[in-house]
């Protein structure tokens, strides 16, 4: 430590000195010789074990040709960006070729998946536990000079020959690259998708060794995650590169813990191209934008500490000094091909965030939710779709209400075997469901651990198109399980159910942590189910799959139980309204146009012998092809009892019918048939003048057919 305290941090000085030597291409021994110190002294400075005295620092500045005091401010030389270039990894010496990123193929790629994975990573990297992780998605379409300036900043012209060489249209990745270049050429526009997180750890750690930086920038399939993290495969980051047509992402990170004594504007770019050959040289594919690092061989590039101006040119200026990372996806697109306009891309991102992270965005009175997310769309700096902060209550009202009630302790809990049912539209019923976590194979023995997951059920509206689902989550409350509950009892209210398992229960119990690990092992890379994955069956003792199945079966059963409408106690509460109208005995009004022949008119009088001479008109219904066989009936009216019939002495057809015995055969094409009849006096039960008479027609039984 120097007495005047110009520098407090030997480590930062060491990193600075190492960087300056790299840039000059000067070795530690050469510097030692020029300063007349031992090589061991220089090494001690560089590794941060010791600080040079003030006069040595001035000598160093002189040797390196830097302004006096440069080591104090540790300003990078103004020409700093001049050191930046794309460093391409040479092809494997064994001739192996990678024609795509295997991790990127593990997903059905889409912009929605990218949003989910990126936000999940941010959530896993939450820095200050009492504050939200803030994730901001910015879609920015640029063109014209703005585009050109950006291309200059990322050394685009250096990349293009490589992209062209890699754009082999016979391969999936190559087709996307070629298409990206073609679109850029045709439209003259480039879409940038920037994903920022704040209050996250940022890309901390050394350039090459284990740490967040190396996990994201250097490695495939390294999740660098522990505990409750959503991802456990390290696949998520591949989807970020997958959202770029060129596989090109530039990062600017503000670190939560300093590296090389610095925190702000750690910048590096990476492009994931497939194997390609250019000017006789073979390249493995990936390349990094950064400072060449001769100490690692010709292809390595390190991150650099960029100036504010540089990050602005890169569209990566961060809006606060809060730690976190900004990813700039260059040539962003929706791999699913669904969203094409800025408006649609915006909507896709909002929907994906709402669907996957509504639970992480639900807050309670006075506490910050784990996650805040927003999406904005710009074109050449002008707002196209204003910034929308994703509101979980807007997109998932029932589920958000259920979770908030749980967080605020306002659920209706079922204790023991008590029968708890939903009765009000905003009731949230809470039921415990037990997951028996078996021992790990590495543990010699031990009983399964009982974890009590929390199941929340609440009614939703009739118009909820995704009603009757149960969504399951653990850890940071990203939606993992999303299933329709089948075999619902009839009359069940439409509902939404939320299952909080593992540490998502927020109780900080040992069982919860064990269940968390168990369920994480049960998640496939897509994080969309809990099932008997290979990870699960290899990690846990026999019966793990059964335990999981029992657990989920119990969840569905509990949901069904809760939503079953309660049978009212009253044993006789009258006929259900729905039956009533089908059970009426009251007479129906006679049809205006009956489907059977009717007597329309009867006129006549008694003749001298006391016989009725009658003229009868019969109305015939429509829509019939067969002739009507009708028997006219003459009855004497009585006050009660059967009415005695009289016989006809004579029947004469008058129109549209013919007489056959005592049957009239009427023409079905006519509407009226007329006949005349004379009664047989000998069949009169009483003299005809003493009684009223009735004339009717009935179907002749066999109709003479």
């Amino acid at each position, binding site marked *: 430590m120097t007495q005047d305290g110009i520098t407090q941090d030997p480590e930062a000085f060491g990193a600075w000195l190492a960087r300056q030597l790299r840039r000059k291409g000067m070795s530690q021994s050469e510097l030692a010789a020029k300063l007349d110190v031992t090589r061991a002294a220089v090494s001690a400075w560089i590794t941060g074990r010791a600080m040079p005295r003030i006069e040595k620092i001035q000598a160093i500045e002189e040797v390196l040709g830097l302004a006096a005091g440069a080591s104090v401010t540790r300003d990078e030389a103004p020409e700093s960006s001049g050191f930046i270039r794309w460093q391409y990894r040479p092809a494997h010496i064994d001739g192996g070729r990678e024609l795509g990123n295997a991790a990127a193929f593990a997903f059905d790629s889409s912009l929605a998946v990218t949003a989910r994975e990126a936000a999940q990573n941010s959530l896993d990297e939450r820095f200050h536990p009492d504050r939200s992780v803030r994730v901001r998605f910015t879609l920015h379409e640029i063109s014209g000079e703005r585009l050109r300036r950006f291309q200059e900043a990322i050394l685009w012209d250096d990349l293009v020959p490589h992209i062209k060489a890699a754009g082999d249209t016979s391969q999936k990745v190559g087709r996307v690259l070629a298409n990206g270049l073609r679109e850029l050429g045709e439209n003259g526009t480039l879409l940038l998708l920037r994903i920022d997180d704040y209050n996250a750890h940022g890309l901390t750690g050394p350039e090459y060794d284990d740490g967040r930086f190396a996990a994201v920038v250097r490695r495939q399939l390294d999740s660098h995650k522990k505990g409750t993290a959503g991802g456990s495969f390290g696949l998520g980051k591949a989807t970020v590169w997958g959202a770029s047509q060129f596989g090109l992402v530039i990062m600017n990170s503000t670190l939560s813990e300093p590296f090389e004594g610095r925190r702000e504007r750690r910048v590096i770019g990476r492009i994931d191209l497939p194997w390609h050959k250019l000017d006789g040289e073979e390249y493995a594919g990936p390349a990094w934008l950064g400072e060449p690092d001769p100490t690692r061989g010709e292809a390595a590039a390190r991150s650099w500490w960029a100036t504010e101006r540089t990050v602005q040119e890169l569209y990566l200026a961060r809006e606060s000094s809060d730690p976190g990372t900004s990813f700039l996806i260059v040539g962003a697109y929706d791999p699913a091909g669904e969203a094409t306009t800025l408006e649609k891309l915006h909507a896709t991102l909002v929907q994906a965030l709402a669907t996957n992270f509504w639970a992480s965005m639900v807050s309670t009175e006075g506490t910050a939710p784990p996650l805040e997310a927003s999406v904005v769309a710009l074109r050449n700096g002008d707002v196209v779709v204003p910034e929308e902060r994703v509101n979980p209550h807007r997109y998932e009202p029932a589920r958000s209400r259920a979770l908030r009630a749980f967080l605020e302790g306002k659920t209706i809990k079922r204790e023991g075997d008590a029968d708890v049912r939903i009765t009000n539209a905003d009731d949230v019923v809470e039921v415990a469901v037990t997951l028996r976590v078996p021992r790990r194979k590495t543990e010699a023995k031990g009983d399964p651990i009982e974890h009590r997951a929390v199941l929340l059920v609440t009614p939703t509206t009739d118009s909820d198109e995704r009603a009757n689902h149960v969504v399951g989550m653990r850890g940071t409350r990203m939606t993992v399980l999303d299933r329709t509950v089948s075999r619902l009892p009839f*009359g069940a209210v439409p509902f939404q159910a939320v299952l909080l398992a593992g540490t998502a229960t927020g109780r900080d119990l040992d069982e919860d942590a064990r269940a968390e690990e168990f369920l994480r092992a049960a998640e496939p890379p897509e994080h969309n189910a809990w099932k008997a994955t290979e990870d699960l069956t290899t990690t846990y003792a026999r019966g793990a799959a059964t335990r999981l199945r029992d657990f989920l079966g119990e969840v569905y059963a509990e949901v069904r139980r809760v939503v079953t409408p309660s049978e009212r106690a009253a*044993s006789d509460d009258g*006929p259900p309204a729905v039956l009533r109208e089908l059970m*009426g005995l009251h*007479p*129906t009004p006679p049809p205006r146009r009956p489907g059977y022949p009717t007597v329309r008119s009867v006129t006549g009088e008694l003749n001298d012998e006391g016989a009725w001479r009658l003229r009868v008109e019969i109305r015939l219904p429509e829509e019939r092809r067969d002739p009507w066989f009708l028997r006219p009936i003459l009855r004497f009216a009585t006050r009660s009892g059967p009415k005695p019939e009289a016989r006809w002495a004579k029947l004469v057809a008058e129109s549209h019918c013919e007489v056959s015995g005592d049957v009239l055969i009427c023409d079905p094409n006519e509407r009226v048939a007329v006949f005349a009849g004379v009664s047989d006096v000998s069949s009169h039960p009483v003299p005809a003048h003493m009684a009223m008479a009735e004339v009717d027609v*009935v179907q002749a039984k066999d109709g003479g057919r």
Partner: protein
Amino acid sequence: MRRIAPYPVLADEVTLTVHEVRLDDVPLPYESTVSERDRRIALHLVGKDWSTVRLVLRAAAPRHELEAGPWKKAAFVATASERRTNVHTAVKLDWGGPAEWVGEVELHRDDHVDRVLISGHLVATVDDVEGRVIADVARPWTVDLQANSPTPRDEIAVRWADFAKVPQLKRHEESPWTVSVTDEAPILYLNSGFEGLRAVLTGTKASDRPARELLASQIAVSLWTTLFNEAIRHVEGTDWPDGWRGMALRRMLPDVFPERSPDDALREVGRGTTAPDLPTRVLHAAIKQAKAPRSLANFIRSLQKTGSEDR
């Protein structure tokens, strides 16, 4: 059916109204006892044992037609009759003004059990023959001894019961519903022990409505089939059976034999129809009563709507 008289009769009919109902000389509240619209009188005599009911009646004939016609000594005879007890009473009413008659009809508790028809005839001397009927009552009245409301008992009773716990229904324990018939009334029993039945039938959720209505109409199909088969066993000759059986037949027969008039259809049934397709015809009529085509169509449409993609 058309009527013809061998002597002059009125073209119009007589209006009969009930002005007061007295139960053992105590007037009953008119509003809750008499329904003019339905021409019914309900004797819902809570816990009271009675012996006689008097109805104060007024009959009115078309005055001008009556005075202009050839009729002499016109008089009104009120009648009270009940099919089940075969009791017929006739009372000549007093002159109450031109073409109007007033008087009382007395019903004795011992003579009646169920429904009494109150009607009458306008009689006169025509061509020197006395007491000939020249007009009938347009809309007769019914005194219902069982009803507790003057609006007609025109619905089949429905009761919830846990079949397993009711001895008479134990036999049908596994059935979701059953129909019981007595002379008084048929009763549809719904099995409250059948899980979910009540939830389906009494639910109010709009989205469950197609299924609810489908089930209701299925119940109704079996109900009406049962009622019809039970009712036709009581048809004799050309008379409509009493009570619910007659009502059920009047609703069903027009659909069982659509090409026959109701009376003709009843006659066909009464003489033991030989129509080989009777069960098919009854099923058709029951389906129509139960509005099954409509509810099934709605149900199928709802399946098409909800059976969409699901993940």
